[in-house]
């Protein structure tokens, strides 16, 4: 038959071993020590002699391990008092208790030290590993595009996404072409904490990581319209005053603003426009040249900004700066490859490709397509009279008139010499004729330099017009427009002639 006190203690040990996990760490430790105390007391009632001291020592060991110095002192005093009450405190029991107390204390300290050091280096390694993987994802993603918009999206996504560096909001300002102003470009982030958490919830539901997110090309668009609208209205002169952006770019290092300086125009503007209270600025530099700045803040969770975290943006900003510069160069060279250097209109290469493409489109959709070929009358005479430099100015002037008249979905091109062409997809015959007539009239009335010296007393232009019909080749279309142009020349110049259904009409 098991004694009652054992049965009760049995239940206490059983319940205590489980209930302690319901409690906070402190009460968990305390309950386990109390359970052990109850057990030790129950066992010691049976009179185990010297074993009792060992059990007391076990209790002291656990309490010292659980509660450090205070636990060691309290438990040694308690158990010494109990031993004294029960039969006198000798050297041996006291030595056991002190030994257990010191051992428990040492175990506790060693455990704490290990936890602390493990925690620190593990977290450091974790952070570095995460930053490296973000940087790797970004490097690969950046190489996948030459579009500035997509690049900016990738960079800001990496900075703001939870699966990236996890800042709540990032704004990007780029130095304009003249290098005199910082212009608000794009931003990602929410204006309120509710928006922020809702966005995060959506992203988490989709179970995507940074790489997956970037890989989704169709998602690569900025959604925070309100934020971007506010941002694009901001233009900050670089050379006026000593503001925080200027400081970050000249010192070439990130700056954390923890308390706003209202005398700084930029800080005031950021605070008033975006309700920023604390933020960081990371300069974007490429070979020492200013490219822009990135501004980050935590407006949703209000996590304090630490330089360690901000430092992780620096390599991203450096990569982004190079990529943006490359992308701008690429866009510029692409633009140059289809632009006529003198007039700024599309060049012949573009014209030929576009004509082919539009003819196919017209054939497929049964939609109208018109072609105009224009030629300046007596241009050789104009050149001979006024010189080639003035001739070039006249070409630029005519090109401007054509470009201003042929707009929207239409394509004005320079064909070569004093010849221009215009492709007008979707324009009706009436609309095409109206445009052609407007160009002719505008050229005739334009005060070109020394136009009085021309044979007709003014500078004029002839325009031949043709319309695409199903089954027609592009060469046929060009020939029709060309013959209409020659017809205009033969009929006294300064006129528009249309080649329509095999007939030519003025």
């Amino acid at each position, binding site marked *: 038959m098991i*004694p009652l006190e054992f049965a009760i203690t049995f239940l206490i040990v*059983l319940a205590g071993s489980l209930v302690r*996990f319901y409690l906070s760490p402190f009460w968990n430790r305390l309950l386990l020590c109390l359970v052990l105390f109850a057990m030790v007391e129950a066992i010691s009632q049976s009179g185990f002699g010297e074993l009792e001291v060992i059990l007391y020592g076990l209790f002291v060991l656990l309490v010292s391990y659980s509660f450090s110095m205070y636990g060691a002192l309290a438990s040694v005093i308690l158990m010494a008092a109990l031993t004294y009450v029960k039969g006198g405190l000798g050297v041996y029991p006291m030595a056991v208790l002190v030994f257990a107390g010191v051992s428990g204390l040492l175990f506790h300290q060693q455990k704490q030290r290990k936890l602390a050091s493990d925690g620190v280096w593990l977290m450091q390694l974790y952070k570095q590993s*995460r930053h490296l993987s973000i940087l790797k994802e970004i490097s690969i993603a950046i190489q996948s595009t030459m579009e500035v918009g997509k690049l900016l999206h990738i960079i800001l996504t990496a900075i703001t996404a939870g699966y990236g560096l996890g800042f709540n909001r990032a704004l990007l300002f780029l130095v304009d072409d003249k290098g005199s102003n910082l212009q608000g470009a794009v931003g990602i982030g929410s204006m309120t904490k509710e928006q922020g958490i809702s966005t995060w919830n959506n992203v988490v539901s989709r179970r995507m990581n940074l790489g997956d997110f970037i890989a989704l090309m169709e998602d690569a668009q900025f959604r925070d319209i309100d934020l971007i609208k506010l941002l694009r209205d901001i233009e900050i002169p670089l050379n006026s005053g000593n503001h925080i952006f200027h400081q970050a770019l000249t010192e070439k290092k990130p700056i954390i603003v923890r308390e706003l300086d209202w005398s700084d125009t930029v800080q005031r503007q950021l605070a008033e426009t975006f309700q920023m209270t604390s933020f960081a600025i990371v300069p974007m530099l490429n070979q020492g040249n200013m490219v822009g700045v990135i501004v980050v803040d935590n407006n949703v969770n209000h996590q304090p900004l630490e330089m360690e975290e901000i430092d992780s943006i620096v390599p991203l900003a450096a990569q982004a700066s190079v990529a943006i510069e490359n992308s701008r160069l690429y866009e510029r060279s692409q633009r140059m490859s289809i632009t006529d250097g003198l007039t700024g209109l599309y060049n012949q290469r573009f014209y030929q490709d576009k004509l082919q493409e539009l003819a196919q489109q017209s054939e497929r959709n049964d939609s109208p397509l018109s072609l105009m070929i224009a030629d300046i009358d007596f241009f050789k005479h104009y050149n001979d009279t006024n010189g080639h430099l003035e001739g070039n100015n006249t070409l630029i002037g005519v090109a401007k008139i054509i470009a201003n008249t042929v707009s929207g979905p239409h394509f004005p091109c320079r064909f070569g010499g004093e010849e221009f062409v215009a492709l007008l997809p979707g324009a009706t015959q009436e609309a095409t004729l109206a445009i052609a007539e407007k160009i002719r009239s505008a050229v005739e009335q334009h005060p070109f330099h020394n136009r009085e010296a021309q044979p007709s007393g003014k500078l004029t232009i002839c325009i031949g017009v043709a319309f695409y019909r199903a089954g027609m080749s592009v060469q046929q279309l060009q020939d029709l427009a060309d013959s209409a142009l020659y017809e205009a020349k033969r009929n006294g110049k300064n006129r528009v002639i249309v080649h329509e259904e095999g007939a030519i009409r003025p």
Partner: protein
Amino acid sequence: MNSMIASGCLLGLFLIGLFFSKAGYKLILNLSSSKKMLRLGYKLEDVKFSFDRMVYTVSLPTNQPDIMQAKKEQFLAAEEFGSMIYPQLSGIRVLLNAGHGNTQLIAYLPIEQFRLPLLDQLLLDGKIKAELYRQICACILILPSTKNEMIGEVYKQIHNKRFS
């Protein structure tokens, strides 16, 4: 004699309690977290999460044949606890069982980095405290379904061909 046996049983029960601390912790964590979430008006299953903050100890995409050719069943999610007597979940490690008792660490997710939008909202609204946040996170992390999903995620990332 009876007292001797009873004392032995008592001591044995206490030691078993200590030895199975982790099991007790997990059991109570689950019961307690479910109850607290229900009190807040949510079920544990309602909580959305992702493993976006998991770090990989291997380069992704990897071409290491041992990892690439490993079957999904060879991956296991191991819980990491700070202490044996007072267990607190500190993270989950995803290991690859390479056979012959050899395991290779593939990925790691510390509990501090397992952030959940719903809990963040409750924390910001002052409806829960940081301690409960951590407790619910730990509970979700040790659910077998979560660990399976974590293994699935690691397997997916290893076989992701987006850069190839």
